[in-house]
C-alpha cells in the first residue's frame, strides 16, 4: 500500500488545522452558514436529513487493517456504531457532531486518511477494480496510476472549481469491475503490439438525470503521458463546460454537445501544447509509487485442498460461498474473498464497528493486512490462502457476514435513499430489504444465476440504477413514493443503459414486479443463458406484458 511521505502528512495536517479553526468560528457565529457551507463540503461534511454526514475517501478502495480498525473506532466513539460503504468505494458516517469533526479528521490523518475532495466541484476519489493487483485477468495493477492521479489532482489549483464534480475510474483487467465507461474519464490498461503498457481513454460517461456511456477518444495512451493527457482533457472541460446550469454542467453534456471527435481533437491539440511541460512525473517517481504496490511474496500452494472440499460437503452455504464469493488469484493456492455486505433483509453497505474490527483481524491473519472496498458495496480480503477459507467463513458467518450471494440477485447496490439523504425522493433501503427477503434462498438465487439489481432513491443515480440488469428508481409521485423499473443496463465492459419499462409501482408492487421479471426470464431463457443476455435477445416487450398486461 502507498505510505504517506512528509509532504502528504504536512498537507493533510495543515488542512485539518484550517478546518478546525473554521468549525470553531462557525460555532461561535463568526462564520455564517452561507460562508461555512462551501468550506465544510470541501472537507466531506454534508448536512443530511437527520444529522451531519462525513464522507471519508478510501483511495481506489484500498484499506489497511489498521485503517479499518480506525473506522470502527470512529463509528463507536463519534457515531452510532456503524458506517456505510458507498458505490464510490468511500465510507460515510451518518451521525457525527459538527464540533467532533475536527477530531475525527485528526484521527483519520493518524492512519493516513482524509475527507478532502469527497465533495464539491473537483476531481473526486479515483476508483478502480477491487481485485487490483490480485486477480488473474489483469494486464497491470491500476493502483499506482490511481495513486499518481490522486497526488496530481489533490488541491490542483486549476481544477478546484470545475463546472461540476469529476470522477475518474481505472481498470487493468479484461473484466470491467470498476464501471469505467460510466465515468467522466474511464481508463482501461492495455498493451500495444510492442508490449508496452498504456491506456484506452474514454470521456463523458456518467449517470444522473442524463445517463451517457463514455466515448473512447484515444485507443492507446502511453503510461508515461497519463497526467499531461488528463490535464488536457480537464482543461478542455474546465474552459468549455457549462456553468450556467448545474444540470448541464457535467463533461458528458459537453462531449455530447461538441461531439466526441471534436472533444478528442481539442484534447489532442491542448496536449500537443503541454505534453513536454513538466507535468508528467519522471520514470523514477513512477517506479517509486509502483514499489508500494509490489505483489506480496506468496509461496505457491496447492489449489485443491481436500479439507476445504470436505468442509464444503458438510456445509452447503459454505459450498455456495466458495463458488460465489471467491475470485481466482494470480498465484495458485490463493483467492480473493468478497465479504458480502448484503445480508438478506439487511442494509446494503452498512457494517457495524464489531464487524469492521473482525474484518481487520481477518485481514491481519489471512490477507496481508489488506482490505478492499468494491463499488458494489462489499469488502474484499485479497491474497487469501485457499486452505484458510473454512475458518474465515465460519468467523464471518458468526458475525452476520457469511452471506453467499456475491454476483447474485440479492447482491444489490442500494443507495441510502430517503432514510438518510437530503436529495432523495423515495426510500431505497426498505425496498432492498424486501427484495432480499423475498429471494432469501441461496439455491433459488443460484438457479437464477448472475443478476445485478441496482437501486437509487432519486434521479441522481448514486445507486447506479441505469447500469443495473434490473434497475429501480425511486421517484416522488404527488407526495407518494413510487418505483420505476428499468431493464438491460450494465456497468461492465459491455456497458449499456437500462430502459424504463413503464409506470411505477408502490413499495409492495415493486417487489412483485421484480419477481415477475425474474419469472419471465426463467421461463424464456435458453440453456446457460444469463439474464442480461436473454434480455438483449428478446427485448423489453414480454417483460412489459408480464408487468402491465398486453397493450
Amino acid at each position, binding site marked *: 500500500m502507498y505510505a504517506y511521505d512528509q509532504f502528504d502528512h504536512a498537507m493533510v495536517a495543515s488542512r485539518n488545522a484550517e478546518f478546525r479553526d473554521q468549525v470553531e468560528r*462557525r*460555532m*461561535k*457565529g463568526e462564520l455564517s*452558514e452561507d460562508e461555512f457551507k462551501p468550506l465544510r463540503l470541501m472537507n466531506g461534511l454534508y*448536512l*443530511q*436529513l*437527520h*444529522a*451531519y454526514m462525513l464522507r471519508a475517501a478510501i483511495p481506489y478502495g484500498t484499506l489497511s487493517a489498521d485503517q479499518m480498525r480506525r473506522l470502527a473506532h470512529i463509528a463507536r466513539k463519534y457515531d*452510532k456504531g456503524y458506517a456505510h460503504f458507498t458505490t464510490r468505494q468511500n465510507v460515510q458516517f451518518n*451521525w457525527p*457532531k*459538527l*464540533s467532533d469533526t475536527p477530531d475525527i479528521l485528526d484521527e483519520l490523518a493518524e492512519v493516513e486518511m482524509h475527507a478532502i475532495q469527497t465533495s464539491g466541484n473537483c476531481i473526486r476519489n479515483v476508483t478502480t477494480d477491487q481485485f487490483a493487483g490480485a486477480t488473474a485477468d489483469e494486464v497491470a495493477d491500476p493502483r499506482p496510476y490511481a495513486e499518481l492521479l490522486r497526488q496530481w489532482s489533490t488541491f490542483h489549483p486549476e481544477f478546484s472549481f470545475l463546472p461540476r464534480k469529476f470522477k475518474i475510474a481505472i481498470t487493468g483487467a479484461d473484466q470491467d469491475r470498476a464501471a469505467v465507461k460510466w465515468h467522466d474519464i474511464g481508463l482501461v490498461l492495455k498493451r500495444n503490439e510492442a508490449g508496452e503498457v498504456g491506456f484506452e481513454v474514454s470521456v463523458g460517461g456518467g449517470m444522473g438525470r442524463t445517463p451517457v456511456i463514455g466515448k473512447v477518444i484515444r485507443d492507446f495512451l502511453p503510461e508515461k503521458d497519463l497526467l499531461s493527457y488528463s490535464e488536457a482533457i480537464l482543461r478542455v472541460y474546465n474552459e468549455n463546460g457549462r456553468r450556467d446550469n448545474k444540470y448541464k454542467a457535467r463533461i458528458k453534456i459537453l462531449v455530447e454537445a461538441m461531439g466526441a471527435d471534436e472533444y478528442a481533437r481539442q484534447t489532442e491539440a491542448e496536449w500537443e501544447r503541454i505534453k513536454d511541460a513538466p507535468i508528467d512525473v519522471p520514470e523514477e517517481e513512477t517506479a517509486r509509487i509502483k514499489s508500494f504496490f509490489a505483489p506480496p511474496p506468496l509461496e505457491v500452494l496447492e489449489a485443491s485442498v481436500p479439507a476445504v472440499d470436505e468442509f464444503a460437503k458438510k456445509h452447503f452455504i459454505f459450498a455456495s460461498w466458495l463458488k460465489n464469493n471467491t475470485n481466482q488469484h494470480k498465484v495458485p493456492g490463493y483467492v480473493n474473498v468478497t465479504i458480502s455486505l448484503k445480508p438478506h433483509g439487511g*442494509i446494503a453497505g452498512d457494517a457495524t464497528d464489531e464487524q469492521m474490527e473482525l474484518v481487520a483481524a481477518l485481514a491481519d491473519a489471512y490477507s496481508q493486512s489488506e482490505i478492499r472496498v468494491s463499488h458494489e458495496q462489499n469488502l474484499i480480503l485479497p491474497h487469501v490462502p485457499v486452505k484458510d477459507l473454512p475458518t474465515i467463513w465460519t468467523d464471518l458467518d458468526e458475525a452476520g457476514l457469511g452471506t453467499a450471494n456475491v454476483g447474485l440477485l440479492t447482491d444489490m447496490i442500494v443507495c441510502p435513499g*430517503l*432514510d*438518510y439523504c437530503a436529495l*432523495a*425522493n423515495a*426510500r431505497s*433501503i*426498505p425496498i432492498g*430489504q424486501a427484495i432480499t427477503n423475498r429471494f432469501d434462498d441461496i439455491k433459488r438465487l443460484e438457479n437464477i444465476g448472475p443478476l445485478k439489481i441496482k437501486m437509487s432513491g432519486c434521479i441522481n443515480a448514486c445507486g447506479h440504477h441505469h447500469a443495473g440488469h434490473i434497475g429501480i428508481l425511486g421517484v*416522488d409521485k404527488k*407526495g*407518494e*413514493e413510487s418505483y420505476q423499473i428499468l431493464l438491460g443496463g450494465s456497468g461492465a465492459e459491455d456497458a449499456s443503459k437500462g430502459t424504463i419499462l413503464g409506470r411505477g409501482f408502490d413499495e409492495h408492487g415493486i417487489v412483485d414486479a421484480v419477481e415477475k421479471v425474474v419469472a419471465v426470464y426463467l421461463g424464456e431463457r435458453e440453456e446457460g443463458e444469463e439474464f442480461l443476455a436473454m434480455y438483449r435477445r428478446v427485448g423489453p416487450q414480454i417483460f412489459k406484458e408480464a408487468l402491465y398486461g398486453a397493450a
Partner: protein
Amino acid sequence: MAKKITGPQMIIANGLDDGRVVFFTRSGGWSPNTEDAAYAEDDAVESLLERAQVFVANNTVVDLQAIGATIEDGKAFPAHIKHAMQAKGPSVRLDLGYQTSLEWEQA
C-alpha cells in the same frame, strides 16, 4: 424554483452542532417532537419565521425553513414525506431515530 406552499405551515431546522431535526414550538423554543410545533397560515407564517430566525442568528439552528403541515386535533405534522421522515428518523434503524427517545432537551 420551489413550489409555493399553501395552507398551514410549520418551521423545521437542524441543530447547529448535532444536526438533529427540530421544530419551532408554540412556546418559542425548539423541540424534536412535532406535537409541540407551532403552525400558522397566510401572513402569519412570516411572523413565525421571523421569531424562529432569531435562533439562526444566535447559532442554535441551521437550515431553517417553513414547510407544509397537516393539522390533526390542533397539532401540526409535516405534510411531505421527506419532512415526515425527518420528524421520525430513518425508517430502517428504529433504534437510532427519534421514535425511541424524545429525551433531547427542549430549548
